């Protein structure tokens, strides 16, 4: 087996193991619930019978391992169980599955993330490379100052400034990103312009700084200096010597920042009332709707782990030292 394939398989195995352990952690959080939790959910007036029924409903009368296996198998089949919001109306109200709550919102969040990534990634890479190539120039210093400032600032600050100037003072965009599934794609994109812009600003700052650092690091290595000293053209140095070694750090930068997007999306969705999974999670946390929180957390965690795994694998596959073993 080639060394590349073996390393990749190793990383994949490790990734699957991490996913498994993370699912246990997320599931196990429910074990840490305080004893009077049922009362807190059902209200102080709940009778002992209702409390007992609720506990049976969420399965607290059975051993944790059994419940975990059941939950895990359900998750693999795309069944995350029922939301507490339906349990609250025990006997009466119709059941609401977690999937029915999450599915439409997940699509919205993916739309937002894809739109952001497709703008942010090329922009950040180009800016980062330019800043690295023209290091210590006015351009570099300006970009550095602006990005350092914008990564130090909370996302909601950026979001509200954009909202104030681009939606209220000068009504160019919609201040609230209310979108629904029956809108056309273009209409949806226009309405989510401000959340996308906010995320792009924050992500580009991070990604650009990391790209710049990675490239500078690379350009400082002796073999680049050698290539320059023997009179090679600048373009050839970049394309033939620097770039093959740059793929790995760049892939890491991109994946890390897309993972960062996951966190940023939560706050930005709340600011712009964007009907995505981040807002759903925040609402579920305030209502202490544990099954929904668990499902959202699992989705975010899986995305995060997969992106990191992807970065790992890309950096292995493009590593010239592994590809051309002596």
């Amino acid at each position: 087996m080639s060394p590349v394939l073996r390393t990749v398989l190793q990383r994949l195995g490790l990734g699957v193991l991490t996913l498994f352990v993370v699912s246990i952690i997320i599931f196990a959080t429910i074990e840490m619930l305080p004893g009077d939790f049922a009362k807190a959910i059902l209200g102080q007036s709940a009778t002992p019978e209702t409390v007992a029924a609720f506990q049976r409903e969420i399965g607290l009368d059975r051993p944790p391992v059994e419940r975990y296996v059941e939950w895990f198998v359900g998750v693999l089949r795309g069944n995350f169980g029922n939301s507490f919001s339906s349990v609250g109306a025990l006997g009466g109200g119709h059941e609401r599955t977690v999937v029915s709550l999450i599915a439409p919102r997940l699509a919205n969040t993916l739309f937002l993330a894809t739109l952001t990534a497709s703008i942010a990634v090329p922009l950040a890479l180009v800016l980062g490379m330019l800043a690295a190539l023209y290091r210590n120039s006015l351009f570099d210093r300006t970009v550095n100052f602006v990005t350092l400032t914008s990564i130090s600032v909370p996302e909601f600050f950026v979001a509200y400034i954009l909202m104030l100037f681009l939606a209220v003072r000068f009504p160019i965009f919609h201040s609230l990103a209310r979108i629904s599934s029956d809108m056309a794609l273009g209409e949806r994109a226009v309405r989510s312009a401000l959340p996308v812009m906010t995320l792009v600003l924050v992500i580009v700052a991070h990604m650009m700084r990391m790209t710049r650092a990675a490239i500078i690091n690379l350009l400082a290595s002796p073999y680049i200096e050698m290539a320059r000293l023997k009179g090679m053209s600048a373009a050839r140095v970049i394309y033939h010597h620097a770039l093959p070694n740059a793929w790995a750090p760049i892939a890491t930068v991109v994946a890390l920042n897309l993972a960062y997007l996951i966190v940023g999306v939560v706050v930005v969705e709340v600011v712009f009332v964007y009907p995505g999974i981040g807002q759903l999670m925040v609402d579920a946390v305030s209502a202490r709707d544990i099954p929904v929180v668990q499902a959202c957390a699992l989705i975010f965690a899986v995305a995060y782990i997969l992106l990191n795994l992807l970065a790992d694998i890309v950096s292995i596959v493009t590593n010239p030292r592994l590809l051309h073993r002596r």
Partner: protein
Amino acid sequence: MSVEFEKDRSPTGRGAAEAGAAPAARFRPVPATRTPLQSAWRELKRAPMTAWFGLVVVAAYVVVAVFAPVVAPYGESEVVGNQYESWSERFLFGTDQLGRDMLSRLIYGARNTIGIAFLTTALSFLIGGLLGLMAAVLGRWPDQLLARVVDVLMAIPQLIFALVLLSIFGASVINLILIIAVLDSTRVFRLSRAVAMNVVVMDFVEAARLQGENLGWIIAREILPNILPPLAAEFGLRFCFVFLTISALSFLGLGIQPPTADWGSMVRENATLITYGDVTPLLPAGAIALLTIAVNFVVDWFLHKTSGLKDER
């Protein structure tokens, strides 16, 4: 580092000896060694503008936070006017959604938000730093175990993990501090373990071990003094991160709870004003932003000075 120490310790001893020998010898008198305060001032004079800006801003925040009751015109949760009054002589920044003075809330917010973030960071350093150093010194299975646990904990995005734990334990200040401190200590663990690893292999640590010193001595007297500068810089960065996380959670309504004045929740409570083109809700957000930028500037300068990091960052 060691040179610095020598300089600071010697003023009385060497200075006195030199002064006594001066009249007889033909050497020029050696100027007295600088006290720590003087060398600090010397460094400050050479500090760039950004570092000065950062230091002044941080100092101002601390003063406001400490003397909040003296500085603020009204009480923290005192209802003094109608809701959403505009900026005036009486209420410099207007009033909030319940008719409380915005300026007073901002001032008290400095105390609460910065205090809680600082406490959390300190706790996170206590946990993460101690475990990291222990892992580095002990090695073998304790190190492996801690490192793997931290790996798994770090595989979940921090804000998401915090949200899950908050939904379980409920949103309160104590829970918030504990949860964020534990989650953030994973990052501190990584760093302190990594920097301590470089020191653990040195001869003087080996000597201390052979001498029979216990774990506490090795950590506190042999390793800690040598890794203090990177840890101090990290403290600044972690503080920013914790501060932003807590503000974000408060903004989401899951962090510091009303009626405590806090910048994150103030943005949330007054956000509707934005849609009328009013900048008031941006004030607390701006206060958060300004402090994090200031701390970042100071840390940048500090890193530049203490490590060989001359060009990058």
